[in-house]
Every structure is written in structure tokens, then in C-alpha cells.
């Protein structure tokens, strides 16, 4: 007998189990890691890039193509920027030998 599971039910099963996993894996996070963890989680949802590539690859009109490419750019910024900024935050937590720190480059932002 072959396994028969309705696709909708299968997706719902995955969805519900993922909720529990997401809750469980970060339940013991210490306060000092709240910001990096949020940043890392933020990077992970940048994987919407995969979805953006799929719809762009199958675009049927120029308008769809243009918006698809826009979505790719946005999603890539989320994905790449997210992981890079998390890496930079976490670098500061690393135990380092003294006097190796490079001066911070001037940023484009004002504060």
C-alpha cells in the first residue's frame, strides 16, 4: 500500500511541527544574544530569494519579470546583508588577542 497523504494536510503538518521546533530551539537564549539571534533569524527568512528566483524564471510578461527581478534584489539584500551583519555582531563576542582591532570604517549613516 502506498502512502497517501493529502498535500494540504502534509503542508499543514509541516507547518505545525515547525512552529514547535522554532519555539523550542531558541527557548533558552540568553539576553546578551537577543540582538544577534534576531538578526540571524532575520537573515534566514531572506531565503524567500528562492521563491523570487522561481517566479522570475517563469515570468510570462515584462511586468512580471521586472517585479520578479526587484524581488530578487530585495530578497538578496535581506539574505546576504542579514548574515553579514550578524557575523559582524558576533565577531565582537569572540575572545581576541589585544590590540588587533582595526578602526571602524566611517559609516554612511549618521546618528
Amino acid at each position, binding site marked *: 500500500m502506498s502512502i497517501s497523504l493529502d498535500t494540504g494536510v502534509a503542508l499543514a503538518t*509541516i507547518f505545525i511541527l*515547525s*512552529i*514547535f521546533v*522554532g519555539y523550542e530551539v*531558541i527557548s533558552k*537564549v*540568553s*539576553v546578551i*544574544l*537577543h*540582538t544577534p539571534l*534576531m*538578526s*540571524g*533569524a*532575520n*537573515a*534566514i*527568512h531572506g*531565503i*524567500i530569494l*528562492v*521563491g*523570487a*528566483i*522561481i517566479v*522570475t*524564471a*517563469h*515570468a510570462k510578461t515584462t511586468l*512580471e519579470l521586472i*517585479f*520578479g*527581478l526587484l*524581488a*530578487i*534584489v*530585495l530578497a*538578496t*539584500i535581506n*539574505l*546576504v*546583508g*542579514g*548574515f*553579514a*551583519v*550578524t*557575523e*559582524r555582531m*558576533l565577531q*565582537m*563576542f*569572540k575572545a581576541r588577542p589585544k590590540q588587533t*582591532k582595526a578602526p571602524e570604517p566611517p*559609516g554612511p*549613516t*549618521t*546618528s
Partner: protein
Amino acid sequence: MTPVWAQVINLGAAISFIVALKALSSPKTARWGNRIGAIGAAVAVAVVLIVNADTKYLVPILVAIAVGTAVGLVAAQRVKITAMPQMVAIFNGVGGGAAATVAVIEFFTVGATGGLVFLIATVFTVVVGAVSFTGSFVTFLKLQELMTSRPVVLPAGRWVTIAVALAAAVLSVWVVVAPSAPVLIALLVLGLLLGVLFVLPVGGADVPIIISLLNAFTGLAVAASGYVLGNVMLLIAGTLVGAAGTLLTRLMAKAMGRPLTNTLFGAFSAKATQAGTSVDRPVKSAGPEDIAAMLGFAQKVIIVPGYGLAVAQAQQTLREVVDMLTARGIEVDYAIHPVAGRMPGHMNVLLAEADVPYDQLKEMDEVNPEFSSADVALVVGANDVVNPSARTDKTSPIYGMPILDADAAQQVIFMKRSMRPGFAGVENELLFDPKTTLLFGDAKESLTKVAAALKNH
């Protein structure tokens, strides 16, 4: 249909995200976790490119990825440490925008033939992604102080928000029952508007919680887009972030002593905080020599570092002052409020950058009983986290937030640029307390002068 080998690799990517989140919640494994997540994501992107390599748009797609990569990398490298929370907000916003766009395009392609679940997932992705997009940009404007960080309450704002939300609900049902592209676009516009209306009334101190919440929103939008596209990996990754982000939002709210419902719905009833009613009240200020003497004669000093310290890039100078004090046998601790800086854990990141040893950093619960035995509490560039009105004044926007008991010390020194209230926009009574002494000026200059005075003392 995605080939089986690609589905298997995608499963691996999904697992890497779970492992990454787990590792990111412990200091020892955090960096490793971030890299595992990045590798998983890179592999998943490579797979989708290989599977779709026959598309005639391969070159434009690759160019778009290159552009996004360049922008993301440069932004992440250039951003100042102090500005990281709003950088995360922007990254989150563009992710939400991408998810909404993907759902709209897929709707144009598949349309009414997608079935009920497809349509529900589509409207959900569009609305939530759009809210996250504009909402994140408003949080960016607030944190970057390009607009006021105080709650912005529009006339009849609450009713406008409710009306827009209702209209969005009606259009959502409309799209599901009778799929129509123009209605979906109208829904997208309402979602964008709703994001702005949702975040405008949020006060400065609550903005970090909202960023975390919008992060969870984007996660859920991505999960729903997984339904739309029938892509299990997107479903898992989005749901993970949605669930973890929701829990993280609750943990942050707890650390700040702000029930989440207050943050979200309290904003509805928020009134614009009255600007300083006590402009002309007398305060006691002193020069760097006096401050150096007060510190030099102390036996126990507790330092309360705040965002102003980081803005002035004064962490190193502070460390020099601390080194001079400890060399004299004075006991010095740093008291770290959970939300010092702009976000939970932000101050730890900032001080770690200045090589301040971890064992000198004391968390709030640990350090609060110590203040009563301290001779001096030195507050550098902080304000709201030592504001006693959080304990006593029920009308204060920060009422209920746990604070550092700096007012229990024998003397309190504030290093401040001006009498301007803190990020929450609330007057601080402690500034007017008789045992408080103020040293006005940029934190770095003040500390440099105090260090020089200590040398000659």
C-alpha cells in the same frame, strides 16, 4: 515540479536553519550557527538556480542577485555598531517586500486556478509582507532619529487604523471568493498603509520589540509564500522564523517589563508625551576636576553605560578611566540594563567591541542590590534605564520597566550632552535629585578630561 534530488538538498537546508537558530542562542556556538545558516541558504539558492537553469532570464536573475549581494554586503560592513538595530529593521523590511511581491507575481501567473488554500496563503503573504515592509521602514526612521521617536498619534488615528484593517479584511475575503488582480493590488496598497499606521503610534522605547515582531511577521509571510509556491523549504524556514521571532518578541518584552499587549495596543491610546515641563528647574553641575575627585575618593563605583556612550565612541576612554580607578584599589562594576542601547543585548555588543572583560559586566538583577553600598553611580550617556518614574509614576510611558537602582547610591554622576530627555521622551527626576551631579558634554570629551584630572589628582 522540483526534482527529488533538489527536494532532498532543500531538506538539508531547512535542517541547517534549525541548527543555526539553536546554535545562535548560545554564546559559544553563535558564530558557527550563523555560518551554518548562511551555507544552507547558499546551497538552497544554488540548487534553485540549477533547477531553473533553462530559463531565458538566467542572466538578469544572476545580475539581480549580484546587485543585491553588493548592496547587502556594503550596508552590513559600513553600518555603525550603534545603528545595527535599524539595519536589521531595513533588511527585515526588504524581505517582507520581496515576499509580498513574489505572492503577487504568482497570483498573476496562477490566478483563480490555484484553489482555496493557495488564495488564502496569497492574501496573507501580500498583507503581512506589505505591513512588514513599510512598518520596518518607519521603525528605521524612528531609530535613526530621522523622525521623532515619540509616539505619533494622528487625529482619529485609532479609527483610521481600524477602518484600514477592516477594509483589508474585506478585500482579502473578496480576493479569496472572487479572485481579481486589481483587488489584490488594492489590498497590497492597504497593507503598505497599515504598516505605517501600525508603527507610527509606537513609542521609542518599544520600537525594538516592534522590530522583532515585524521580523516574525516576515517569517510568517515567507511561510505562507511556501504554500503559494508549494515549496516545503520556504514553509519550514518561514515558520521557524515566525515561531522563534514570536517567542523572542515575548522574551524581549519581558526583559523590558512591557507586557506585549501594552506595546501593541497601548500605542492606540498613547498620547503624545508632553515635552519637558521642567525646563528651568535647577540642577547641580560640576567640572571634570570635581568629578575626578568624587570618583577618586570613592571605594566602590558602579558604571551605568548607555547609548550616548556608544554614540560618542567613548567605550575605550571609559575603560581607561576604569583602569585608573581599579589601579587605586577602587571596586568598579558595569551595570548592564537588559535594554541598554537600543535593543536587548545591544550594550553587550558595544562594550565587547571595546574589549571590556565580561566578568566586569553585571546584569541588572545581580547588580541592583549593590547600588546601596556604592559611593558613586556613574551614568554615562544613559537616562531612561535609571529613571525612577518607571517605579512610581503610573502615567509614565516607561512605568513598569525594570530599572537600575542608581538612585540608591550615595552620589550619582550623570555625563550627559544636554538636559534633553532620553529615547522614551520622559523627564528624569533623578537629574534634579540633590545627590546628583551633572557633567555636561560629549561623553568622550568628558571622560578624557576626567581621566586627565585623575592623573594629577
